[in-house]
């Protein structure tokens, strides 16, 4: 366990070096968030009766999504890991006397968390001061806030577990671009990155919430504002645990299979 913790600290510190990239990200995210809120408000004005959330909950969802974009976006891959299968770097990874799966999992977590740390502070620091109906309001109560933090972490784990499956597939196919583009497009739409899941037709929404798609950003961002609460919240929290267990076992199984036939490319 200790070695994973020190590995985490190493990667985390490395991630904090990329400050200019973070600044560009912050500017982009502000713009994105504003436009998203403006368009959703326009839909609200068109017909408030079919609008599935409150405006405050929408704003919370959008700003949290923007603040933690690098944390829970399906499109945030570790280039080095993708390259290491094609350039032979994988040999070094396999030499280490620890599980490659666990090490990569921790590494992904450290990188994403350090990236998010740099970006979320300036964004959250500004949006809490925006007027109501545009900005981020306070969490519903202390319990919802703690659960928000917990489900944010759990959502991150589910996302990494599903990305790990993609990294594992890479061992078999070497080029991963095709599968990756499918993965990203499907995840963007179905996890609620394009439109929040409550805006889908009800039947689709119910299905998505039972699948891993609904266990990533859908949960924390809606719990924060109290949009997801009560029994439904309990179910969502359990679903996250369930999918994390399933996806991680699947990933480990694939890893096991891949390691038996790994061919080191490059030199």
């Amino acid at each position: 366990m200790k070695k994973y913790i020190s590995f985490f600290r190493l990667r985390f510190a490395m991630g904090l070096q990329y400050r200019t990239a973070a600044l560009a990200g912050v500017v982009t995210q502000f713009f994105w968030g504003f436009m998203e809120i403006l368009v959703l408000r326009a839909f609200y004005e068109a017909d408030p009766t079919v609008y599935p959330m409150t405006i405050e909950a929408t704003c919370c969802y959008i700003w949290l999504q923007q603040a933690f974009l690098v944390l829970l976006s399906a499109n945030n891959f570790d280039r080095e890991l993708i390259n290491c299968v094609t350039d032979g770097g994988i040999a070094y990874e396999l030499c280490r006397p620890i599980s490659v799966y666990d090490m990569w999992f921790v590494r992904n977590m450290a990188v994403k968390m350090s990236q998010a740390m740099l970006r979320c502070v300036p964004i959250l620091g500004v949006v809490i001061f925006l007027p109501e109906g545009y900005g981020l309001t306070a969490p519903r109560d202390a319990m919802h806030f703690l659960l928000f933090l917990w489900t944010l972490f759990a959502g991150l784990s589910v996302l990494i577990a599903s990305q790990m499956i993609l990294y594992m597939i890479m061992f078999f196919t070497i080029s991963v671009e095709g599968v990756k583009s499918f993965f990203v497009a499907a995840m963007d739409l179905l996890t609620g990155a394009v439109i929040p899941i409550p805006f889908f037709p009800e039947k689709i929404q119910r299905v998505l919430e039972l699948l891993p798609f609904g266990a990533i950003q859908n949960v924390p961002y809606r719990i924060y504002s109290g949009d997801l609460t009560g029994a439904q919240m309990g179910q969502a929290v359990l679903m996250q645990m369930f999918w994390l267990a399933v996806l991680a076992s699947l990933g480990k199984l694939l890893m096991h299979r891949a390691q038996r036939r790994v061919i080191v490319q490059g030199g």
Partner: protein
Amino acid sequence: MVIIMHLYKKYLAIILKSKMEYKASFFMYSLGVFLSSFSVFAGVFFMFRRFNNVRGFVYSEVILCYGIFLMGFSLSEMFARGFDCFPTLIRKGEFDRILLRPRNIVFQVLVSRFEYSRLGRLLQAAVMLTYGVSKSNIRWSGMKILTAALMIFGGMCLFSAIYVMYAAASFFTLEGLEFINVFTYGAMEYGKYPFAVYGKTILRIVTFIIPYALVQYYPLLYLLDREDNAGYALLPLLALWFIAPAYGMWRFGIKHYQSSGS
């Protein structure tokens, strides 16, 4: 001019040839670009399953708007990609080679990259446009076809001008300014709705500062018979003013260019 066209074709053939060396990766990448625009469309589709209109625009009108705007964007993305990748040219010192050749500089940068894989987005734009046109109840006249064509042409020029500005900035920064993506990819994504949807402030910005609305919202009003004034149809031409500052920045950049790279 004839020689330039001949050369252009040659360049395209060479780039296509080099891309075809990695066929699988090329098609996968095109597919990826297609899919990413597709999920934007899917978002709009599901929103309109729930809502009947947004600021008075119904589904078919929004789709038409998106199709036209996306078409302009994807054409510029394909042709002006050289400017998008310009920071790399500068950093590697390849731009010095371009300066030494006895051909137009803008032309050479344009042909330094040609993004065939963006055909995926072009295909998506074509599908959207066809779908939008077939869904809309527009009675097409010569003037309206001209309007739509001008919108696509204007959009292409506007986005290309932004790419040029992005390239010009890299003369000084030597690296790409990531946030410019907001004005290219961002605008492309948010241009799926007529810009009036975002309220008066945004509409003013995209009318007077970066004239997206001149190639999208106003001529769209004419297409949809909400404005009879034919002047609205010609507004995309007015958006071409944006090329001037872009070209100015480019000239300024070249003048002050000090070589870099190796």
